């Protein structure tokens, strides 16, 4: 893995696919090219709403979440398709596979955007960006915009500046001309609520935010206020972290036995160990999953995988082991086993997880939540790390690479 060199000025790309869903549909069906196209939930029903649309449709005023009937009024020739998420995920996988060929330092942000740290890859970032953009367009038939900056924030803002097929460089020295005159709500990380609060202390443009008083900002926005001011000044120290992927779908661990076995004790011991590995890595990612997959490879190399989707997300080694063992013994044909793998699929960050409460246990959860909210309140005041659960110590040096492997595995599984 390439090492980060901290003293050197970094070069970050933010790659953002243009009208991703619509573009994927066009790539699939050339006839749609140049047409006003929208993806909507229920095309045959009036009440369907627009999920996304092509530039041609946007030019007519079609907007995301607009009801379909309204969009049709604005743009009678609108072609409406049902979303095909499998197709988009497929395209996304190919995209990130392509990006990881440029550098392993790829941080996917969502299905259609990501950061690349290309500091050590090239001396001529613009040429690299042009080549990359062409490559994505030619091999995947998809347009993208690339923003280039010394950090994530500026790269992100830059990619937004020219669409479609833009390549924009945003340096710190450009800020007074490019960003500062703009309204504060176009800034990444500033939503309507935040903009409202900023307005209450007289901040309406990014420039005003850059010069605003830190104390006043903290009053209305807490710790986030200072962070936003830094961003407005082009300061952002976040690294491109391949581990920070939102969309990690699976985390797994597998092991070959030292000899083929039918001994249930041995098998259970291995399952316990694998469950612990998976759980530890989930914890490190502050994540949980809700599909458990078990892989059994027999001595004749025949391999079966079986999975079970659960109602609730799980993360503890015991829960994982319990389900994995159940699956194993349900499907094991009693022949000698060579290798066992346990993979947690459907993995999400805990922040993105909604946990369905249970009628018979909600009172207990309520107690837990009260405790949690105390922690959250304190964190808001004193910064997010105050109460972070103690992370695993350095005994887990292997974790970083193994998660990367999971992530890349996702692309290899084609």
């Amino acid at each position, binding site marked *: 893995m390439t090492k980060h060199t901290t003293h050197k000025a970094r070069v970050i790309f933010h790659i953002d696919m243009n009208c991703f869903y619509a573009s994927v549909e066009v790539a699939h069906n050339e006839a749609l090219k140049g047409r006003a196209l929208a993806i909507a939930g229920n095309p045959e029903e009036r009440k369907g709403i627009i999920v996304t649309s092509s530039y041609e449709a946007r030019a007519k005023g079609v907007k995301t979440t607009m009801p379909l009937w309204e969009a049709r009024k604005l743009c009678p020739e609108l072609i409406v398709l049902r979303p095909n998420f499998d197709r988009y995920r497929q395209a996304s996988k190919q995209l990130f596979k392509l990006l990881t060929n440029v550098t392993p330092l790829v941080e996917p942000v969502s299905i259609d955007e990501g950061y690349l740290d290309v500091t050590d890859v090239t001396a001529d970032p613009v040429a690299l960006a042009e080549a990359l953009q062409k490559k994505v367009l030619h091999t995947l038939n998809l347009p993208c915009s690339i923003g280039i900056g010394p950090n994530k924030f500026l790269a992100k803002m830059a990619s937004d500046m020219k669409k479609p097929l833009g390549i924009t460089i945003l340096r710190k020295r450009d800020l007074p001309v490019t960003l500062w005159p703009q309204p504060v709500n176009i800034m990444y990380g500033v939503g309507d609520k935040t903009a409202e609060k900023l307005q209450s202390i007289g901040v309406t443009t990014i420039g005003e935010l850059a010069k605003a008083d830190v104390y006043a900002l903290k009053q209305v926005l807490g710790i986030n206020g200072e962070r936003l001011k830094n961003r407005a000044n082009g300061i952002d120290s976040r690294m491109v972290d391949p581990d920070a992927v939102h969309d990690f779908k699976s985390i797994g661990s597998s092991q070959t036995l030292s000899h083929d076995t039918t001994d*249930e004790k041995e098998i259970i011991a291995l399952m316990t160990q694998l469950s612990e590995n998976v759980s530890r890595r989930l914890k490190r990612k502050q994540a949980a999953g809700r599909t458990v997959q078990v892989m059994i490879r027999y001595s004749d190399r025949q391999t079966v995988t079986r999975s079970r989707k659960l109602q609730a997300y799980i993360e503890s080694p015991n829960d994982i082991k319990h389900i994995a063992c*159940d699956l194993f*013994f*349900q499907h094991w*044909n009693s*022949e*000698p086993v060579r290798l066992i793998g346990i993979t947690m699929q459907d993995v999400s960050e805990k922040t993105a997880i909604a946990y369905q409460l249970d009628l018979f246990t909600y009172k207990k959860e309520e107690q837990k939540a009260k405790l949690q909210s105390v922690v959250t309140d304190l964190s808001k005041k004193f910064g997010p790390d105050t109460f972070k659960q103690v992370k695993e110590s350095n005994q887990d040096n292997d974790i970083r690479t193994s998660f990367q492997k999971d992530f890349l595995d996702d692309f290899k599984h084609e």
Partner: protein
Amino acid sequence: MKTWSDIVAVQPLAGKIMTNSIKRGRMSHAYLIQGARGTGKEALAFLTACTLFCAHKSGVEPCGTCLDCKRIASGNHPDVHWIVPDGQSIKREQIDHLQKEFTYSALESTQKVYIIKEADKLTNNAANRILKFLEEPGSHTTALMLTENSQSMLSTIRSRCQMIDLKPLDPTLFQQRLIDEGMDERSATLISEMTNNITEAKTLNDDVWFADARKLMIQWMDISCTQPKELYVFVHNRWMPHFKERHQQDRGLDLLLLAYRDILYAHLDKMGGLTVFTSNDDLIQKGVLAFSQQKLLAVLQHILAAKRQLQQNVHQTLVIEQLALQIQR
């Protein structure tokens, strides 16, 4: 064995344990009935079920003619469930069905009986699921698990059942019965080594395949004693074409085991133990000359190992070829 008195005659202890607990109304929720083939496991389970359901019994003896008794016999009694493994294992659907049945009320009565044949084929997980349910208080459910080999079940499962051990049958008694049924003495001696079940014994005796298998076994013995170099060729030309299936091969190995054991007995001058040969067979004299006691012990080990390999699905031809080479050495 259709009545408790039949059972008590053959299995006095097991019969008493069962009848006593029925009489006293102190049935366990689960029994693990263990015994070799033909020792009466099924008869015991069947009678227990009849006694629990029959409304016309005299003492513990079920009438055998009422609707309950008749339907338990025909498998149509809705509250008596037989779980019979389908091939190598008890299938998942069977366990799922069982679990569902557990949660439902009985159809006709207020009690349910489950008879699980070859219970050692349950996965531990399935067995645990079943026992866990049975241990819930208030379930009027009795499970009778039958097995030839309770040792292959986890001790945690065994400890949660009441164990009923059926004693092995007396071989001479069984041989006599076979002879009474019209079998010649030699066949009766041999077959009583292969099974304890009278019906199976008779089928085996009338089976043309088995008769040929016996002949091939004699030829194998002859070749291995007189011209051992030919054994390998014999395996390919004669032995393998006859023993095609795994269970046939297993039977073939059983026959060889008995034959070599006979030669060992001849060495030790224990002629009463002979099963395949008689003391004045030519072949047994040849065998004594060709194989030392030590060599015979090694051969018996090899055959047992071959049987194990077969069970582990090692390729049949490979197993027998290897055995032939080991014996001819």
